[in-house]
C-alpha cells in the first residue's frame, strides 16, 4: 500500500499518517474503533437511554457541584480543576453512547470552567471555552453573556456588542445581558472617541 500516505496496524486496527488533516480524521476513527472493540459486541448499541452509563453521570454531577461550591467560596483555581476533571470524564465516555445525554453534561462543566477562568481573569482561556459553548449551545443566552464578556476583556469590543445582541435576541428581558450590552456600547463609543 503505497498509494496513500497511511500505514495500517492489523492488531489494533489503527492507521497512522504524516498528513495533519488526515491525522485528525484518523484519530477520530481510531478512537471510535478502540471504543467499539472495548464494547465487545458485534454492533454498537442503539442510542437509547439504557445504553447510557449513569454511574459516570453521577460522578460528573458531583464534580460539577463541587466546582460550583468552590466558585461560591471564591476558590477559583480549585473550581477550575474540578470542572476540568468533570469535562475529562464527560469526554471519556464511549463514543457510541448517545450524545444527547453527554452533551448537557459537557456543556454545564464547560460553563463552570468558563466562569472560573473569567473569575481568575484568564480571559483568553474563557474566550476559548465560550467559543465552544457558542458552537454547542447557541440557544442558551448565558453563553452569549460569557462569550461577550470574554471578548470585551480581550479588547474585541465590537464583537462583544454583537455577542450581547445575539444573546438579547434569544432572551430579550435578560437583565445581565442588557446591562452588559449597555456598558459595551458606551465602551465602543469611548473607543471611537465619540464620548
Amino acid at each position: 500500500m503505497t498509494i496513500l500516505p497511511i500505514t495500517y496496524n492489523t492488531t489494533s486496527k489503527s492507521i497512522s499518517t504524516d498528513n495533519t488533516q488526515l491525522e485528525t480524521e484518523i484519530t477520530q476513527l481510531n478512537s471510535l474503533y478502540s471504543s467499539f472493540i472495548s464494547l465487545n459486541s458485534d454492533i454498537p448499541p442503539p442510542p437509547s437511554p439504557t445504553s447510557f452509563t449513569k454511574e459516570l453521570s453521577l460522578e460528573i454531577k458531583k464534580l460539577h457541584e463541587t466546582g460550583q461550591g468552590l466558585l461560591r467560596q471564591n476558590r477559583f483555581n480549585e473550581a477550575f480543576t474540578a470542572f476540568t476533571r468533570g469535562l475529562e470524564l464527560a469526554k471519556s465516555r464511549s463514543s457510541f453512547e448517545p450524545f444527547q445525554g453527554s452533551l448537557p453534561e459537557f456543556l454545564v462543566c464547560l460553563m463552570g470552567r468558563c466562569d472560573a477562568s473569567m473569575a481568575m481573569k484568564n480571559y483568553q482561556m474563557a474566550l476559548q471555552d465560550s467559543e465552544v459553548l457558542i458552537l454547542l449551545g447557541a440557544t442558551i443566552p448565558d453563553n452569549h453573556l460569557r462569550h461577550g464578556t470574554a471578548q470585551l476583556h480581550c479588547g474585541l469590543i465590537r464583537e462583544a456588542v454583537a455577542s450581547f445582541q445575539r444573546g438579547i435576541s434569544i432572551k430579550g428581558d435578560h437583565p445581565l445581558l442588557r446591562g452588559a450590552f449597555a456598558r459595551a456600547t458606551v465602551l465602543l463609543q469611548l473607543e471611537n472617541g465619540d464620548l
Partner: protein
Amino acid sequence: MSQSRYEYDENSETWPYFALTAILVPLIPSTISIISSLFKKSNKSHKSSFSPYNANYLQSFRNSQNRSKLFNLKTVLTIFGWILISGLLYIISNTETILSENHFDPWKILEISENATEKIIKTAYRKLSLKYHPDKVDTSSMTQEEIDSVDAAYVLINKAYKALTDETVRENFLKYGNPDGPVEIKHGIALPHFLIEGAFSPFLVVIYIAFIAIVLPLLVSNWWNGVKSTTKNGTHVTTADHFMKLLINASPTHVLLVDDIIKQVSHSVEYLNINTALTPDTVYNLIVSYINRETCKDENLRLNVVAITPKLLSSFLEIAAAFKNTDYCLKIVDAHRSIIQALNIEKDAKHFTFKEILQLPGVDVSKIDTNQSILTLGKLLKNKTVTPEKFLNKDKVDTIINYSKKIPIIEPIECKFKVPGEDHLPPMSAAHVSLKFLIKSPAHKGKPDFKSFKKDVINNQFKEEQSMDNLKDPMRVVNLQPNVELLSIPPYFPDTSYIEQNSGWIALLVSQRDNKIIEAPKILNKADLSNINLTQDEFMESKCNISTFKIQLSTPTPKEVGVYHFRLILRNLTYFGSDIDIPVVMNVEDKPIEKSKVDVYGIEDPDEDSIAGAMAQLRGESVKRVEFKNEYESSDDEDDEDNDDIVSWTDIDTDTEVEEDAVDSK
C-alpha cells in the same frame, strides 16, 4: 451556372452597404466602451505624497497596466474598423446609382413637377401626345427603329397620364411602382459577377467552406471550453473546486486565521497564468512577504501575484457564503483588506490592536506610542489623549490625518425588514432588508438628531416615495444612488483600478440562532459620500444626505407568525475600522385585510347554499347564512344548551375548589 437568372452587383451598388452594416454593428459598442474608459481614467488621478518602499515598481506596474489597457487588440481592431468604414464610405459616395430601365416615373415622362394639379397634368399630356402621336409624327423619313421608339414614347406618355389620373392604374403604380400591376420579383446577389462565375468562384467556395467547416466550429468550441473552464465570476473551475473542497471539510472547531486563508488561496491555478513555475508555497511566501511589507528579489512577480489575489478571494467568499459559513466569510474579508492595505494583522498583538492606525500611509509600526490607547480612527481624530504628532512620532502628520478623515464610516439610522406596499410583514411575502444610513467621516462625532434632518431628506431619502416604480422594484432607490468612490486610495496595492471598482462594504445577513448566512452576500457600493466633507457643526445641524441599502430576500418570509432574529454584518472591503454589525428583527404578523365598510357596488354576499356562496367560502369571503330548519333542530339546541350549562357550571366549580384549597392552605 451560366444560365443563372440572378443579377450581380457589378456596379458595387449594394455590397458596400452590407459591409458597412456588418462592420458598424460591433464597431460602435466597442468604440463607445473605449472612449468611456478613456474618460473615466482622465477624471481621476490619485497623487499621494506618501511613497511606499516599492514605489518605483508599483509605478511601473501601474503604467504597464494602463498601457496594456490602451494598446490592446481591441483598440487596434477598432481603429482598423474605422479605416475600413471610411474606405467603404468613399466607395459609396463615388458610385452612381443607375436606375434600371423599366423604372417608371410618370412626372418625369410628362415633364411636370410632382405636385402638379390635374389641370397641369392634362395640359402636359395633351401637349406631349400631340407631339408624339403616331398620326402626327412624320414617319416617312424615319427608320423602323425610330418609328418604334416614337410608338413606345407615345405608349409611355399614355401610361404616365393614366397613372396620375385613372384610379386603378394609379393604385397599381402606388402599390408596385408600375402602372401595369405586379411584375416578377427579381433576386440579386450583392457580389460582383466575377466572384461567382468567373475565375474567382473556387476562391469564394474555399472561403465559404473554411468558414462553415473550420472557423465556426472553432469559435463554438472555444466558447464552450471557456464556459467549461471558468465559473460565472471568471474563476477557473479547478480553483473553485479547491475552494469547495476546503469548505466541505471546514471544521467548526478550527480557529481560522488570515494566514490560513492566504495558504488556501495560494493553491489557485490562476497563479500559473503569471508564471508556470509558481508553486503554492512560493505564492504563499510572496503574499506573506508583501503583507509584511518586506522587500523582495522579484518585485514584479510579487506585484503580479498580489494583484490578482483579491479577485480570487472574492470568488472564495462567494463560495463560502453558499456554504453559509460566516466565520470563513469574515476571515476572507479580513484577508482581502490585509492584502489591499499590505498589513499583516496577525503578525503580533501590536499589529492586531493597532490595525486601524497602521493602515494609514506613512505610519511606522516601530515608532507609534503603544502606551496610548488610540486604537481607532475615531479616537485618533476626535478624542485623542496625545497629539497625533507625538502618538505617531512624526513631524508632519497632515497628510495622514487628511487621508484618515476621508475614510467613509457607516452610521446606521434604521434597519428593518420591509414588504413593498405593506406596513407589516405578512407570512410568505417577498420581503427585503432596508438599511438607512449616513456616510460620515471618522472625524465626525456622534450622529445628528433625527429631527434635525432637512424635510426633503426625510421625505425623499428616509421615507421612500410610494410610487408604482418603487413598489414594483424596491431596489430602484438603491440603484439611483451614486457609486462609492474612495477619496483615500491605499498606496501599497498595485492594481488601483481594482480598488476603485470594488470599493464598498460586503453585506452578510446572518441568522442570530445558528450564526449562518441566510442570503447570498451583496456589496454595498452605492451611497452618497458627500457628508464626508461636512464640518462637525454642519454634520450635527444635519446637512447630511441619507443613503439606502437593500437586500432582497430570495426566500419568502416564514409561514408561521412570529419574531425571527437576524444580524446584518457590513464589512468594508478596503479599510479596517469601518464595519458595522446590527441586529434586524423580522416580525411576521398576520393582520387580516380590513374590509372596506362601504360596499361601492351594493352587491350582497352570495347565499351559503349557492355555487357562488360555495366559491366565496373557499376563498374565505363572507356568505349569507341560510336558515336551515329540520326535525332534529330542537333537540340539537337542547343539547347545546345542556353542554353550555355543564361547561359554565364546571368552570365555577373548579374555581371555587381552587379558592377553597387556597383558603385551606392558609
